[in-house]
């Protein structure tokens, strides 16, 4: 298979920059994804701080109403479309081929295309600021507002379509990679749980994202060619937008969380020194979330009165079941483990606890009467941030601390990691817990200012928390810079991992593996370390027959 000639980095004819620009290596593309998404995480974070500065006090005039609408819209758009969704492609790109023992993704050039669609999309989306204002209808872009707002909206639509294409072809690539490129012995039910989560995420992306593309095309036609899709005067229907939008965007919240669950499920067994409890139950729970994910979209639309509330309420409660299964998987994995608290483990534990809160306050909202009371209040903002920040972002940092030695051959400083974790989890809860109370008290989301003096204390607490999250990035940046100032000193397997990415050097060579261990279970490295396997049956789980 070593027939692909690999150009030497930094040769006279091929400078390193050109090498990065033209690379089709899944590891380099993963790193490019990582830099791109972390950049937009910073941009989205700065916008979030602007939002919180505006809301810190009542009757604030820090930014104008118009500017505020643009800021919160672009905060959400950057965080969701340019950070969370593509950063899973960063981890997926780097880790999935390594974990299944492949040399690369199935389609390396399509992989490069997936990445290179992102920078133009990011530029387009933010270029609205130079053309009379960016998109300002919220990331949900509801009509009629989105039909009538300025040019920034058109740029936003095209950017999101580009991102959708990137994510759709990326998903097809991941699926073929995992279906067809697994090393001998790596059966589907020996694939690491992270891969399974990327697999289900990819199915959701493949089938849901095109529906968003269709919705965005309709919105674009309405705005530019006099279409009537979302205009009742011409026989259209504004609720149609909500249906097609959430048909994508509800599966999309699982797209945004499942790979994070996968990362946590890789970290917990390593630092609790136990196998993941109930591997198969976990895989089936992931598939269950993927399947049910397509049948709950209208719980965002209860108050429209245009959806079958009992059905969507019931299905939303149902999706709590596989999610609950996963929580118990994680807890049982920790039970009586020899736990150590390195930074990856801290962030993983942060994920489990914060995501649990996000799951519970989400299940409240599934009850139709409760939903009517809290719809479009800050309670919903609290919920989304507990699952997407308390969930996904904690998993991102867990994954960064865990795989940084593999990515770069260097380790992030443990003390700085602990400092970041403490600042982040305190700041996070200070920022978002008060939003539950504000929401129950009736504070609507997406308002530029308020004049209720009662809301000031909680909003100020929230703002202080948001800035604390900002401060928590300083130890992280110091750790990254410090790591890069040191030589590459990391062994193949610094954490005593279970999965194949730890069987190669840190960072891996271009062809990934010089040799692969035999694979008899979902923990080939554990087996190798303890001399298990080679006789077919895994002694602990009984798996791996034949």
């Amino acid at each position, binding site marked *: 298979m070593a027939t692909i000639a690999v150009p030497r980095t930094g040769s006279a004819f091929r400078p390193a920059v050109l090498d990065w620009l033209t690379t089709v290596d899944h590891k380099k593309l993963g790193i490019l994804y990582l830099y791109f998404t972390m950049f937009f995480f910073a941009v989205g974070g700065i916008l979030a701080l602007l939002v919180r500065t505006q809301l810190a006090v009542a009757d604030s005039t820090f930014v104008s109403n118009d500017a505020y609408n643009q800021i919160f819209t672009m905060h959400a758009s950057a965080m969701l479309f340019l950070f969370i969704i593509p950063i899973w492609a960063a981890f997926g790109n780097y880790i999935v081929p390594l974990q299944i023992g492949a040399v690369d993704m199935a389609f390396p050039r399509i992989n490069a295309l997936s990445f290179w669609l992102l920078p133009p999309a990011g530029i387009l989306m933010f270029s609205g600021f130079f053309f009379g204002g960016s998109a300002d209808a919220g990331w949900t872009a509801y009509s009629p507002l989105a039909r009538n707002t300025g040019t920034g909206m058109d740029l936003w639509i095209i950017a999101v379509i580009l991102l959708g294409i990137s994510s759709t072809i990326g998903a097809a690539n991941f*699926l073929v990679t995992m279906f067809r490129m697994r090393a001998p012995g790596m059966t589907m039910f020996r694939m690491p749980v992270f891969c399974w989560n990327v697999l289900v995420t990819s199915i959701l992306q493949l089938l849901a994202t095109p529906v968003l593309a269709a919705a965005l095309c309709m919105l674009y036609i309405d705005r530019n060619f006099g279409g009537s899709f979302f205009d009742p005067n*011409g026989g259209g229907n504004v609720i149609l937008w909500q249906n097609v939008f959430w048909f994508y965007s509800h599966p999309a919240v699982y797209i945004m969380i499942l790979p994070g669950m996968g990362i946590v499920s890789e970290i917990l067994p390593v630092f609790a020194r136990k196998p993941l409890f109930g591997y198969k139950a976990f895989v089936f729970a992931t598939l269950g979330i993927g399947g049910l994910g397509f049948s709950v979209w209208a719980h965002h639309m209860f108050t429209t009165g245009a959806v079958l509330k009992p059905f969507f309420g019931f299905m939303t409660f149902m999706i709590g079941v596989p999610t609950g299964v996963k929580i118990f998987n994680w807890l049982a994995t920790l039970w009586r483990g020899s736990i150590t608290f390195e930074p990856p483990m801290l962030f993983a534990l942060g994920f489990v606890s914060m995501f649990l809160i996000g799951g519970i306050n989400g299940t409240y909202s599934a009850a139709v009467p409760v939903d009517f009371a809290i719809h479009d209040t800050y309670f919903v903002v609290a919920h989304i941030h507990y699952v997407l920040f308390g969930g996904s972002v904690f998993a991102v940092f867990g994954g960064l601390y865990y795989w940084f030695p593999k990515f770069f051959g260097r380790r992030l400083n443990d003390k700085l990691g602990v400092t970041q974790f403490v600042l982040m989890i305190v700041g996070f809860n200070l920022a978002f817990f008060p939003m539950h109370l504000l929401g129950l008290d009736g504070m609507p989301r997406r308002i530029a200012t308020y004049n209720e003096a009662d809301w000031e204390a909680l909003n100020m607490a929230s703002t202080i928390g948001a800035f604390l999250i900002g401060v928590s990035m300083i130890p992280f940046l110091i750790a990254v810079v410090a790591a890069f100032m040191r030589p590459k000193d990391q062994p193949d397997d610094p954490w005593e991992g279970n999965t194949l990415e730890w069987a190669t050097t840190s960072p891996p060579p271009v062809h990934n593996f010089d040799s692969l261990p035999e694979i008899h279970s979902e923990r080939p490295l554990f087996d190798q370390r303890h001399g298990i396997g080679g006789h077919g049956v895994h002694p602990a789980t009984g798996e791996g027959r034949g």
Partner: protein
Amino acid sequence: MAAHGAVQHRQGLSNGMLGFILFVASEVMFFGGLFAAYFIARADAPSWPPTELLTEEQLAAGVELHLEWVLPTIATVLLVLSSVTIQIGVMQIQRGNRTALMWWLFVSIVLGLIFLAMQMYDYAQLPFRADDTIFGTTFYTLTGFHGAHVAGGVIFMLVVLVRSAGGQFDAGNHEAVEACSFYWHFVDVVWLALFTTLYIVGPRS
């Protein structure tokens, strides 16, 4: 490292074909979204075509909400025929006959281009535009996106034709031809669904 190479020699679908089928699945969902919009608009309207939605200005400008069916019917027959011709081309290359493949590709391309020309003529003579009620919007959006896919299919066939002319493809190696015909059949099936929906199911009072 021979182990990694092993995956390349598996039986059944190739990686490329599996990836292509997944891509077409995503296309199905795209059209699914557009069809959903059409059916919701149709169910919402008091009648279909929703003539009562036309404004005074639109009536004065001579806007009428009805479709011509003769030309699209002929176009439908030609498009179905082109699915047959490209499939014959695939069968020919399976037997290693590259010259026959090129001829059948050429015929399919011509049929595809005739379909596009007829669609453009149809657009030019229809008495309504995309901004004339949801009827016009859905009609031009659905048939327009389908037309764009026909154009994409024609380009795909042209690429395959050029590659055949350059001496590529033989009995054992013609993945791109299979993918191209698969895509063309998909475009054909979408049109049959569209034709049924727009012309055969047609009006409702």
